[in-house]
Every structure is written in structure tokens, then in C-alpha cells.
């Protein structure tokens, strides 16, 4: 394992821009370099994870397939905020990817414990 861990922040809703895909690609590349990678979804970022998305009519790739495949890359640490779940009237059962729901203060600790943070 590498001596530095990496936290990636997702803050944008699905289909809005390329930052979500670009951040995911960083996750996969860094994992291949044995860098321990965690993901956290803040604010609109959580909307990427909700069930029932059908991207076909938009002729866009659905990133959910990649999010669901992250375990194969040993990326198992996915976090959302309890406060964001409440904001959008969601529970973790509404998310199609396994995530840990954490408090705002736990999020601050997570950021502190991370050696590198990329927030596109």
C-alpha cells in the first residue's frame, strides 16, 4: 500500500458536467497505484447515487455502473452526509450504492485524516 491516502469529493449532480466522471477516473487510476481511495458525496453530489436513474434517453453514460463496480478496485469507503440525505428527503435505502451516512463533524474528521483531497 502507498504511504498516502486520497479522498475524492463529489459535489455535482448527475449529467451536469464532466467533473463526476473525471473524479471517478482519478479514483480508478490512483487505486491501480495502490493508493487507498475514499469517496465522499456532498450536497448535490449525493444525487448521483439515487436509484431509478435512466440515462438512456439522454444518450449519456450512467456512472452508477462504475460506482457499483468500485468494490472490484478495492474502493469500499463511500460516504454521504446524514444532513444531505435529509435535505433531499432520502435514506440510504434510496441510494443504489452502499454508502456510510455520517455526521457533518465526522466529515470534517474524515477530511482531516486524509493525506490528499481532490475536489473537482
Amino acid at each position, binding site marked *: 500500500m*502507498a*504511504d*498516502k491516502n*486520497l479522498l475524492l469529493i463529489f459535489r455535482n449532480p448527475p449529467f451536469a458536467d*464532466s*467533473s463526476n466522471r*473525471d473524479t471517478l*477516473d*482519478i479514483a*480508478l*487510476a*490512483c487505486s*491501480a*497505484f495502490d*493508493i487507498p481511495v475514499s469517496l465522499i458525496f456532498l450536497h448535490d453530489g449525493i444525487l448521483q447515487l439515487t436509484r431509478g436513474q435512466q440515462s438512456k434517453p439522454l444518450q449519456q453514460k450512467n456512472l452508477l455502473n462504475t460506482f457499483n463496480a468500485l468494490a472490484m478496485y478495492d474502493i469500499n469507503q463511500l460516504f454521504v452526509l446524514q444532513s444531505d440525505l435529509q435535505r433531499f428527503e432520502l435514506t440510504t435505502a434510496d441510494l443504489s450504492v452502499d454508502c456510510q451516512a455520517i455526521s457533518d463533524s465526522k466529515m470534517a474528521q474524515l477530511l482531516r485524516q486524509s493525506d*490528499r483531497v*481532490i*475536489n*473537482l
Partner: protein
Amino acid sequence: MIFSLLIYASQNSGQAEQTALRFSRSALAQGHKIHRVFFYGETVSALSNLKITPRDEIDITRQWLDLAADDDLDLVVCISAAVRRGVLNQQECDRHNRSAANLAAGFNLSGLGQLADAILSSDRLLTFGN
């Protein structure tokens, strides 16, 4: 201190690249090292050598090259970001059978592994974006 920079910005909006350039100049002047500057996302669109900068505006790409010439900077452009935006080196031009290579000389196309390496090899990673 060894720095690496991740540039994730559009040259048409914001001043992220100008800030990154000033930061780089100051860091180098203070004797720090810049391991790599990694250009990602929309940033790479502006690295075409077909780009014409209006005479009364600053050509940022030129400024990166000037800095690189003075201080031997490793300017790496994400290959997947570049190819999808039509910014090709000769190798990619041949591979995809296109009419011309247009990546500005002085920049190198490579994969995201170069960003991972930059994370591992540097004391600090700074992101400049918009």
C-alpha cells in the same frame, strides 16, 4: 518542498491558470521544486497549437512553456481528456487516423497514472480549478 499541481479549469472562464502560474513562479523562486503540472478536464482544450490568442491578450500556454524552459517543468496533459477534445500528439493522430497533430510542443500526453505518481512523489498537491 516538492509540489505538484493539478489544473482543472477552462481558459475561457476564471483565472485559475494565471493563479497557478504565479504560484509556480513564486514557489520556484523560493527554491521549491515542482515535480509535475498535470492538465486535466477542460484545461486541455486550450493546449492546441491551432489556438490564436488575440494580440492584446496573454497567451497562457506560452507562459507555461516559458516557465518550463527556465525551470525544466514536467507539463503532462491527460491523454483521455485531450483526445476526446481533439487535442492530439503525432502518436494519437496516427492511431486514430486524423489529419493533423495539434498538441502544443512542450506538453506531453500521458495517462492519469502520472497524476497518481505526482500524488505519491510530492509533498504537496495543489488543485487550481474553476
